[in-house]
């Protein structure tokens, strides 16, 4: 028997299927895994005349190579000097999900108890250089084929400048975006962390943090500044503000009713030490992050005050590339400690006045010829005992979950010798094994999930332009590199 759990997960990281206050609060604390969107855009490949593998480990995002991090750091403006307007891309994901035990009543509305095939996502992107100093990564349109909703996803505008200050090289910029950590150059935090694709048709643990799970993603907007000094020290600070219910409806955030409302200004910061060495064949990063957010649990602002979440986090990343880049090892780790001052939840429902939530995630991947990428990962979430606040699917008073994930990815294209540079495809086979789920060890394995994902990602402009040029007898497509 499957542990009764969350049946639906939205791209905002919220869950629904609870009732009363517990449900509202549970909806607010997010999910262990927020569904990510893959994010190597073929428009970037066309813009730079570089294959996907130049920027991405595994030749398909989002894990960045040293060059990929530079491309992002310098504001997405690097190009081959040609015009490739408009820099658009389209992505589609088709998924198959099997859980060890079936989900009575259906994995989601309109889906069966088990072995579900779904359109995971159809997304539109506008990504590229705007001016020599301004670049964008925008995903304004993302259709969620499970919940049948459409909204925005990871989006960022960067303004950048570089030079020397007192003899030290610097890159400095401004970022405006809609999700904390979307600006991160590394791949341990919520928006770009592994697993890059997850299913919405399997149970997921209820507890998650701001930095580790993106529980505020797409419900906020923010802006701030970042700087890299001497290719060693990275600093970033931003201020976010929660969106009103009307704005969330407009951008497609779903569901709005009964979910958290972020109150006031939310500071986010990151400070990191990072460097590439050995001719960029090795690189590392160690960083620390923090965020403070005031939250009306379940959107209920009737209490005298809101809950306050305070995240302190640390991440570490390491990459090794063989001399010919045919072998790549990547390791990522993240630890988050979230303090919860539950003024509103205590007043409204009698939760503890304070709780805490911690999580640790780590994964290691090996990429062979940027084509075959096996990855293994471990996750552990644990927190204080509170029979009211967590609202776990099991009824447990603790939010603890733990398990392992193994994945094999196959990416046939996206390399220098691929037949096209304006499109790519990824096949993922992923298995999640739970040893503890929402505070319960017994039958945790019933939630184990086998997930198969096929992602297709392409820039529609070059083939259209080529076709038009072929008709007109003009061989100069201006569509970048075609080999």
């Amino acid at each position, binding site marked *: 028997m499957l542990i009764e759990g969350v049946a639906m997960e939205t791209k905002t990281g919220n869950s629904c299927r609870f009732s009363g206050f517990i449900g509202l609060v549970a909806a607010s604390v997010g999910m262990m895994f927020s569904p990510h969107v893959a994010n190597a855009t073929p428009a970037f490949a066309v813009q*730079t*005349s*570089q294959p996907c593998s*130049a920027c991405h480990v595994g030749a398909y995002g989002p894990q960045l190579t040293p060059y990929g991090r*530079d491309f992002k750091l*310098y504001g997405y*403006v690097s*190009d081959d*000097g040609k015009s490739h307007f408009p820099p658009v891309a389209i992505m589609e994901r088709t998924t198959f999900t099997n859980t060890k035990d079936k989900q009575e009543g259906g994995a989601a509305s309109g889906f069966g108890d088990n072995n579900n095939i779904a359109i995971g996502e159809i997304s539109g992107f506008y990504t590229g250089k705007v001016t020599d100093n301004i670049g964008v990564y925008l995903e304004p349109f993302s259709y969620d084929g499970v919940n049948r909703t459409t909204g925005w996803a990871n989006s960022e505008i960067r303004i950048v400048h570089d030079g020397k200050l007192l003899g030290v090289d610097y890159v400095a910029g401004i970022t405006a975006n809609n999700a904390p950590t979307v600006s991160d150059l590394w791949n341990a935090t919520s928006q770009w962390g592994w697993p890059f694709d997850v299913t919405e048709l399997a149970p997921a643990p209820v507890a998650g943090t701001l930095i580790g799970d993106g529980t505020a993603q797409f419900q906020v907007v923010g802006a701030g500044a970042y700087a890299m000094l001497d290719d060693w020290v990275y600093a970033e600070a931003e201020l976010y503000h929660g969106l009103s219910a009307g704005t969330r409806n407009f951008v497609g955030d779903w569901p709005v009713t009964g979910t958290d409302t972020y109150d006031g200004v939310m500071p986010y910061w990151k400070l990191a030490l990072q460097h590439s060495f050995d*001719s960029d064949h090795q690189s590392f990063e160690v960083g620390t992050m923090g965020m403070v957010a005031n939250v009306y649990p379940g959107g209920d602002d009737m209490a005298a005050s809101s809950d306050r979440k305070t995240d302190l986090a640390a991440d570490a990343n390491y990459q090794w590339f063989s001399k010919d880049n045919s072998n790549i090892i990547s390791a990522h780790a993240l630890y988050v400690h979230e303090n919860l001052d539950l003024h509103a939840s205590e007043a409204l429902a009698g939760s503890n006045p304070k709780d805490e939530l911690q999580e640790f995630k780590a994964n290691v991947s090996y990429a062979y010829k940027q084509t075959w990428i096996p990855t293994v990962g471990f996750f552990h979430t644990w927190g204080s005992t509170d029979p009211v606040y967590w609202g776990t699917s099991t009824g447990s008073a603790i939010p603890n979950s733990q398990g392992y994930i193994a994945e094999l990815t196959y990416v046939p294209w996206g390399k220098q010798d691929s037949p096209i540079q304006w499109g790519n495809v990824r096949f993922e086979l992923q298995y999640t094994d739970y040893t503890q789920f929402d505070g319960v060890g017994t039958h945790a394995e019933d939630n184990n999930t086998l997930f198969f994902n096929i992602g297709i990602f392409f820039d529609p402009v070059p083939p259209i332009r080529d076709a038009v040029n072929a008709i007109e007898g003009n061989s100069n497509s201006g569509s970048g590199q075609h080999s």
Partner: protein
Amino acid sequence: MRKMLGFALLASQCIVYAANAADVPVDQAGQKFNPDSITVKAGDSVTFTNKDDVTHNIHVITSGGDSEDKGLQKPGENIKETFAKAGDYQVRCSIHPKMKMTVTVQ
């Protein structure tokens, strides 16, 4: 006859000038310029050789900010740039933003 003499004189001056002009090699390897800073005389040239396995796109930027795109440079290709005027120049690859060097022309 005077015209012919004039052309001959001009041609000989050009030959002497060319013979005195130097050509400085700069490698592009590991997505870096090597060396990353050089000093040449006005009229000297610099030959950039792409020893990487990726395409580069050199831009020569004057101290006033004017940028000249030298075009895509595939692996193994050379680009020869003559620096006729004295000044400080920056050479960057528009594809690889960290790849930059300075050329001081005296």
